[in-house]
């Protein structure tokens, strides 16, 4: 275990842990959007910025991907940190002005107006969480960043329908600003942002549509399951 301090409070974390996860475990709140414990930290949203003092030198860094070290001092609420965070939330809010969560966070930090050019009411903030979940948790590899700089966007390859997408909806759930969207109509499920529509399979017992055919076929192929494994839905099985 490595011991260090956050805002003067002594804390302990595992060898390969990062500041943010240790802080959250210890009940210390650091605002964050692109961090999710089930995927590797990425440091895209920059909201989890903290000041770290190590060997007498202080620097600003994202806490989600800063590895913990013996004896470092972390400060989550210095004037410098708060000022930087206000600017970041203002910039994020200009990318997605219509989002409730962002608005609340901004208000909590004392940002009253956005001075930058506002984008569409609700748009992606390019945190990359959906793609990381798709790659690391789901393993479907359906979407990724494309281009760079001000042209950067999160799209399926070639900007078309995401052919690898299994319409599991994991990206829809993790998206911090809720811009992906899923729709179920009759026997079809659509992931709106990735333009992916898949036919659903119905349960042999209750008759409800419970998962897309394509998804179940992928699961069966990966786990080498018998052909009739998914004839019955998850609820009827248990």
């Amino acid at each position, binding site marked *: 275990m490595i011991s260090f301090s956050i805002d003067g409070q002594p804390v302990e974390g595992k060898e390969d842990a990062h500041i943010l996860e240790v802080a959250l475990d210890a009940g210390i709140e650091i605002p964050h959007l692109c961090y999710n414990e089930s995927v590797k930290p990425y440091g895209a949203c920059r909201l989890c910025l903290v000041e770290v003092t190590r060997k007498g030198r202080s620097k600003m860094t994202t806490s989600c991907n800063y590895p913990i070290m013996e004896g470092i001092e972390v400060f989550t609420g210095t004037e410098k940190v708060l000022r930087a965070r206000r600017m970041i939330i203002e910039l994020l809010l200009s990318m997605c002005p219509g989002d409730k969560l962002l608005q609340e966070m901004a208000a909590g930090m004392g940002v009253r107006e956005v001075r930058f050019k506002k984008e569409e009411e609700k748009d992606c903030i390019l945190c990359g969480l959906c793609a990381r979940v798709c790659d690391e948790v789901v393993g479907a*590899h359906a*979407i*990724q*960043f*494309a*281009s760079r700089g001000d042209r950067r966007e999160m799209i399926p*390859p070639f900007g078309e329908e995401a052919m*690898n997408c299994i319409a599991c909806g994991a990206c829809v759930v993790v998206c911090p600003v809720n811009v992906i969207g899923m729709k179920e109509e009759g026997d079809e499920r659509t992931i709106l942002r990735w333009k992916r529509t898949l036919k659903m399979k119905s349960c042999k017992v209750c008759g409800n549509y419970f998962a897309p055919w394509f998804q179940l076929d992928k699961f069966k192929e990966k786990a080498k399951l018998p052909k009739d494994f998914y004839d019955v839905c998850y609820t009827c099985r248990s």
Partner: protein
Amino acid sequence: MIHSEIETIIERYGSRESAILSILQDIQAKEKYLPREALEHLGGKLGIPINKIYRIATFYRAFSLMPRGRHEVCVCMGTACHVRGAQRVADQIKLELGIRPGETTKDRNFTLETVNCLGVCAAGPVVAIDGQYFGKMNSAKVDGTLKKFRSDKKKKEGANGKV
């Protein structure tokens, strides 16, 4: 691009996943762009998901996913060229070719690109076509310079006063 060509390129790098950039560069050098089916085939061969390959291919400006023209026209927009009127040269080329930077003419003869410095500021405004440099450019010289690279049919039209 046929699959065997791609496989020859992949084998040159020992089918290593880490060689993806070099492989893409070789495909780009051969085809002048990255054809979609080449990327898909490459992903299958190296075991790299297509979303990752697409990310790499769109990140670097050296790669193009659209077919390129036979001749690449690079207009320098660096500071030295800019103050000597690079914008006017660029506008004239746009007008003559009927395309914007990054685009290719319909007959796939020219691709227009703007770059930030070609390193010959003393000769500015500079235009480079297929690596051949044309210095001290102005909008009046554009037509004559482009004519050298026009296809035969177009050259004749140009001689009749129409381009």
